[in-house]
């Protein structure tokens, strides 16, 4: 079956986006391979003269790089980081994340919309990380976003689909791919989001904190694929929608 994830005109077979933070560079290749990932996120930081190894040397060929703007506290900083990332010569994808809150690391939707508009205007494929709010999501669509990436729970919390009802609204109302990002702690949660109709899942901490990272990567791959298939097949019945009327409602109709 031809079921591609399309982001900004680019086609992907995998619906799992892998984070690369908080684990050893030596594990990246196995994580990418076992997760079947075709997109990997990166951060931009000050270069360190003492480090001889560069993450780009550990990422297999053909994987799309998705630099994030982590560290940005407003739209201007996010734009600055995105431009630096593009100058590094690895394509024009960018995951906009702007946090003004250092405790919960919750995204600032208003600043994210501003940054999205600027970066989309500069030709970036913009994938904004956001708090799942329908009005903000619509503004992001109008600003030129390529996908919407609502959080499931606070980043790194592994708490699962805490914002489930609101993510469902985005899936129902927004024509762009909805990629659930942040808070997904277990493969079963990723599967549930995919069953709901999410276009893809992004996870990092759930893998980084697993006892066996490549094995967990494989588990996520299978969970995402299972959820996708369940969604495409059309989920079965939901029982108990309320009691039936005692008198027929349609008795008044004439032939």
């Amino acid at each position, binding site marked *: 079956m031809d079921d591609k994830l399309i982001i900004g005109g680019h086609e992907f077979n995998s619906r799992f986006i892998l984070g690369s933070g908080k684990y050893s560079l030596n594990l990246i290749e196995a994580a990418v391979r076992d997760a079947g990932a075709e997109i990997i996120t990166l951060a931009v930081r000050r270069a360190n003269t003492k480090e001889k190894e560069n993450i780009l040397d550990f990422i297999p060929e053909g994987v799309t790089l998705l630099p994030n703007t982590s560290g940005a506290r407003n739209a201007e900083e996010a734009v600055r980081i995105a431009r630096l990332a593009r100058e590094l010569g690895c394509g024009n994808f960018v995951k906009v994340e702007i946090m003004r809150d250092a405790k919960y690391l919750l995204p600032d939707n208003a600043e994210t919309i501003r940054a999205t508009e600027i970066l989309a205007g500069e030709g970036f494929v913009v994938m904004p990380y956001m708090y799942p709010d*329908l009005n903000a999501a*619509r503004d992001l669509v109008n600003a030129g976003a390529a996908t919407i990436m609502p959080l499931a729970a606070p980043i790194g919390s592994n708490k699962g689909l805490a914002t489930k009802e609101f993510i*469902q609204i985005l899936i*129902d*109302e927004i*024509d762009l791919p909805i990629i659930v990002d942040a808070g997904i702690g277990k493969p079963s949660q990723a599967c549930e989001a995919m069953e709901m109709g999410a276009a893809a899942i992004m996870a990092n901490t759930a893998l980084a904190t697993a006892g066996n990272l490549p094995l967990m990567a494989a588990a996520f791959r299978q969970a995402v694929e299972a959820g996708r298939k369940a969604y495409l097949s*059309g*989920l*079965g*019945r*939901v029982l108990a*929608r*309320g009691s*039936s*009327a005692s008198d*027929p*409602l*349609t*008795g*008044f*109709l*004439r*032939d």
Partner: protein
Amino acid sequence: MDNQYFVDSGNLSAEALERKHRLENDPSCRKNHMEYLPGMEEIKSDIREKVISQMNEYSPEKYTAKDVRTALEHDTCSIEDFKALLSPAAAPFLEQMAERARLETGKHFGNTVYVFTPLYIANYCENYCVYCGFNCYNHIKRMKLSMEQIEHEMKIIADSGMEEILILTGESRSQSDVKYIGEACKLARKYFRMVGLEIYPVNTDEYRYLHECGADYVTVFQETYDAEKYETLHLLGHKRVWPYRFDAQERALLGGMRGVAFSALLGLSDFRKDALASALHVYYLQRKYPYAEMSLSCPRLRPILNNDSINPHDVGEKQLCQIICAYRIFLPYVGITVSSRESAEFRNGIVKIAATKVSAGVSTGIGDHESKYSGKESGDAEGDEQFEICDSRSLDRMYKDISEEGLQPVLNDYLYV
């Protein structure tokens, strides 16, 4: 084509009659219905393509009882589910659909039913739409109310307790120009809380002007979304331009109107496809203009003066009920209006399931509210009606009937801002 619609008037001259027959029988002498006329604004919109491609793909016979059951089991009704609910396979599930529809209506509207009345201010028309009593070849008494007459009618209607009015005209730009309609809106704002318009489609700047005059809601019926069928029914006049009519609601919203209403006239073409297209027209516009209020009507064909053989064809009450339930399940938040074309029994039943708005104290004639409301004869000062209504209940009667069904009639809840 079948000619149940064509009626010749003895009052037409030989030349006029010849021209009428030529229009009816020779498609090559009709204007291209897809081509805009001078002065018609063309907005760039992707809505039409989306709606029509879905409609063209739709084969109602393809759906099975299993598809219908699946659709009813889903929490959110997808476009595919909606297609199943509109299909012939859904007929045996009408009661289940009604139960689900009632649940959705309750979630979004509670037990309220809105009541309004239409006011026809002119019945001149420049179009030859073969099924319509106002068509320019139909020999009827034509009339256009003066501002004094309009105000007189409005006073009578307002005295009956009505707070929402829908102003209608025949589709004649020359007899009922935008300025004339604007003046009527200004008068209406003095007597009513909410003023709607059902007039010929106009350009964005004209909708803006009418909004400034006090109108807030625009209703345009597409009649049929099947453009080829449309061409064979709307033979003459600006109404023949199908795409300009299609984009009317979007122009109205761009002009600042708060809400828009849609409909196909069920029975003109394949009613399942027309119902699908009507609902998708709402669905796609709602996604593009999420702040706008939207509602659907569901009129069936009715007999007209000088031609009582016009009928709703294959759209019986059960089919109509199926369509309305499907609308409600697919678009739970949308208003659904059921007009006085339907019987009192049907309207009493359908407001308990899915309809949220009904008209009362209705006349589709011109300047006859006084005679209809009070029995006072007005002599010759009335224009003929657009179609025969079926439910002639007054506002008082309607209010009482709705209340007795355990529902709450609402005359208006809109705060004008």
